[in-house]
């Protein structure tokens, strides 16, 4: 499923990185620990987190992640936003908490 479709179906705001909305998503990974994501997220995953600094995009890019979802209304720092646009990795926003986003995304990706 494309990032665009997930953003539409889960009512997520496209904050930046809009050129990457056609990135293909094969699953999700939820963590706020960067080494955990580095060690365990898979290429093509969408990353759910509340971290809002530039290193998030460095990791998303190194791991070939499809997009990042910021929970609870968090917004990216200016340099995170800039790198999201450069790398074409969308940052999506929601007021939902991680638990809710996880559940909705899981159901969507698994056709429930």
């Amino acid at each position, binding site marked *: 499923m494309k990032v665009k479709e997930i953003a539409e179906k889960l009512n997520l705001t496209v904050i930046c990185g809009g050129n990457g909305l056609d990135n293909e998503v094969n699953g999700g990974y939820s963590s706020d620990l960067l080494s955990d994501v580095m060690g365990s997220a898979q290429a093509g995953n969408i990353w759910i987190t509340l971290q809002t600094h530039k290193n998030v995009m460095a990791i998303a890019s*190194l791991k070939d992640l499809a997009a990042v979802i910021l929970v609870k209304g968090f917004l990216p720092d200016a340099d995170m936003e800039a790198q999201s646009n450069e790398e074409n990795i969308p940052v999506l926003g929601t007021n939902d908490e991680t638990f809710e986003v996880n559940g909705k995304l899981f159901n969507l990706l698994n056709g429930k």
Partner: protein
Amino acid sequence: MHFEFNVEGGNFSKAGTASSQLKKILKQLNVDPRIVKRVVVALYEAEVNIVAHAFSGTIYIDIDTEKIEIKLVDEGPGIPDIELAMQQGYSTASPEVREMGFGAGMGLPNMKNNTDRLLVTSEVGKGTTVEMTTYLNS
């Protein structure tokens, strides 16, 4: 092929620059994507450790047809007990660094899991050297 990168301690906005460059180089060399993924994880963690725990460092990368050799030499506080530092969850990172999501104590374990050979040597009060080898036909 030989490459060198400098790493500034404390400068998190540049963390990952060398890893990103190496990823590009390895892709251009048509290295197996599975190997590229592993090397990138290991180098990123090693690079971040210089940023988070040391003052400055240099990364030396040598690539031949058989292997990728990476050596990171830093000036910093050094590691008093390397065996302890290698344990998952052990971290001396500051509260500020932890708040950013670094400092989970998973960096050295990630490096171990994503290289064929990892050697950490250190002199307290002077610095740390990390050597990582990845074989291309493994």
